């Protein structure tokens, strides 16, 4: 760069500079790579030493538990349909937690997003506040709120629903406000010129523009929330996770039930994944184009 002002550089100068630059890049890249490898190795060793069992003692036992479960389930294969029916209500509960939480989170997230977008906020001076609220909501892991609420409200689906809804609201609040930034403000101005109030401007001017994207993100969130709701069940919030923990703590003899729960959870996740993937594709690319896998 500086040579340009200093005078016309010769071809040799340019070549030297280029080789120096590539060498420098290589050195930096090499240093970064070494640093990364060292961090991975050191991290692995630390994690290994702080773990109850070490990796090298345990890795050949990874398949022991699944095979135990599977073999027992295979022996009692006749009871499998009955087990699947027994745990179906728990699956419905898990799905309900996820769906209700996604619904509540989407509504709250929409509000947070509108409140934190320039040109749409009801109180423009409070935009930073609502952004921070979204950030904090997003940062709280579901389990934190769930555990505290379980202490107050007792076990059951409601604490899990509230916990997931709060996290969802934060996460969607951020994504939605990014969508909002790209929405045109002209319809809003048009509505304002005919005397529409804030809620009318938002409902008629903004939501129709951003609706498909909102629904698409909400569907993605629904997928994630099913997993979260299963996990929260494990700490006492009802649904499949709770049944799974019970079946597991019984240990051998109940593995057929554990297997049934595994199957239900797996199938549900895969089906919802596929379904929401298809729906999202339709929403964002239009129906005629179809899936572009």
């Amino acid at each position, binding site marked *: 760069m500086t040579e340009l002002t200093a005078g016309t550089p010769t071809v040799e100068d340019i070549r030297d500079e280029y080789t120096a630059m590539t060498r420098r890049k290589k050195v930096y890249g090499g240093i970064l790579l070494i640093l990364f490898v060292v961090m991975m190795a050191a991290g692995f060793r630390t994690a290994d030493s702080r773990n109850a069992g070490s990796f090298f003692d345990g890795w050949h036992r990874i398949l*022991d538990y699944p095979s135990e479960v599977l073999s027992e389930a295979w022996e009692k294969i006749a009871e499998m349909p009955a087990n699947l029916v027994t745990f179906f209500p728990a699956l419905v509960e898990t799905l309900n937690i996820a769906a209700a939480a996604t619904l509540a989170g989407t509504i709250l997230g929409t509000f947070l997003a509108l409140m934190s977008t320039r040109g749409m906020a009801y109180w423009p001076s409070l935009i930073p506040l609502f952004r921070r609220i979204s950030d904090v909501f997003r940062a*709280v892991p579901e389990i934190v709120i769930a555990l505290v609420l379980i202490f107050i409200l*007792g076990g059951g689906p409601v604490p899990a629903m509230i916990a997931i809804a709060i996290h969802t609201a934060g996460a969607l609040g951020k994504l939605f406000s990014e969508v909002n930034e*790209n929405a045109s403000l002209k319809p809003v101005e048009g509505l304002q010129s005919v005397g529409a109030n804030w809620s009318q401007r938002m409902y008629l001017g903004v939501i129709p523009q951003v609706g498909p994207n909102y629904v698409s993100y909400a569907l993605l969130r629904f997928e994630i929330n099913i997993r979260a709701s299963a996990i929260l069940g494990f700490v006492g919030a009802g649904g499949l996770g709770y049944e799974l923990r019970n079946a597991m703590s019984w240990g051998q003899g109940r593995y057929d039930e554990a297997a049934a729960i595994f199957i239900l959870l797996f199938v549900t996740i895969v089906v919802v994944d596929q379904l929401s993937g298809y729906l999202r594709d339709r929403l964002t690319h239009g129906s005629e184009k179809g899936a572009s896998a």
Partner: protein
Amino acid sequence: MSTFATDLTTAELKAEADRLFSRKRVMNFGLPALVLVYLIYVFFAFDVAGLAARANWENGKTLVSDSYSYKTHIERDNRTGEVSAAIEGERKGAYPEGEAPDWVTLGETTVIDLADGHIVRFGPETVTYDIPGYGTVRATPSRSAGVQAELPPGEVPEWINVSKNRLAVTTDAGRLTVTRNRSEVFRYFTGWELFWFTLDSPYYGKSFGELVGLAAKGEAGAIFNDFWTNKMWRHQDVAWAIFETILMAFLGTFGAAMVALPLAFLATRNFNPLKSVRFATRRVFDFVRGVDALIWTVVLARAFGPGPLTGALAILVTDTGTFGKIFSEALENVDQKQIEGVQSTGANAPQRYRFGVIPQVTPILLSQLLYFLESNTRSATVIGAITGGGIGLLLTQAIITQKDWEEVAYYIVLIILMVMLMDWFSGWLRKRLIKGETGKKRKPADPGSKPFLLP
């Protein structure tokens, strides 16, 4: 969209417009109505009405008040007459024998000043409590006759609870309980007790200025050591737990990326002509993703026991599926021209990949990786709570004991700060590493193009 034929009459056009409007009207009311119906169903399915009855608001009140305040117990053993003082009534916070906080005067008659004129006296025989605006409550505990309480004349207020063997007085200033065997006073203070130093540390009660002075004299190491090994708050363990959680996220995310990248090549149309291998790899990705972190955690915990390694591996396995899918989609979208260009200079296969493919996909890969690093910090907290490692374990332990709510509050604050820090860090790194991505760039949001963006 409906197409309009040019030869339609005005009446037909109007009819069509009317139909459109009525359909929209139905949608406008139908959709919210559907949501409402679902919410009503959920209301009953979750038994919300019963929940209100079962909820324990007393628990909630203790939780909230305990999270920002603490109490000091002054306790007298009525048989031996010994008086002891302990913060939160825990041995870790006990005052050495014969010592007490400065609002307690030890002696034959122990005088406890609860501020605002509330004074409790532990006499040799009788316990008295002067309550301003009410009078003096006396209680004489004895082995044979239980607790004999004398109250000022008039009706017994509801904040005093008297029975044959027990007297309990709860005021704003504190709380007095007298039973046959012991008399106990709680005084409440705002704040987190002994956060810096426990009572047995010589640095307890010193001001910040004094500590800086002592540190300058060469006691910095000892001061830090006393803080670091604080038995009440266990700062060392907490720091390790946070580190473990971040370690789980780091190992899991980058480990998954390292496993998924080569596999992703196998799952792409343009790099792998073998359809069966492609199909198999994709199904493997779908399988590990579908099994879910919860089940992987359970399975891996059986093999490796609780700890950060188990959590890291659970994240690694789950994310291998997710990354495999994202990476293979990114790889299918690479520009062949660049690869051909590299090939035309006589590059062999590894060089073609290194200089033709990797530079094209690096920005997508890195930005996804960093998104996941943040999101996995949260997952690591949750997984830690299940498998037993990191800050998630500390949090569940503190909640299960049901009394150290100030510690729960402390951990929650730390977790939120940790996640926000990781969020900020991954955003910063993304900006530094990917030159093209600046704050300004705002393409029309297209969730379909980044289907796994976990926020």
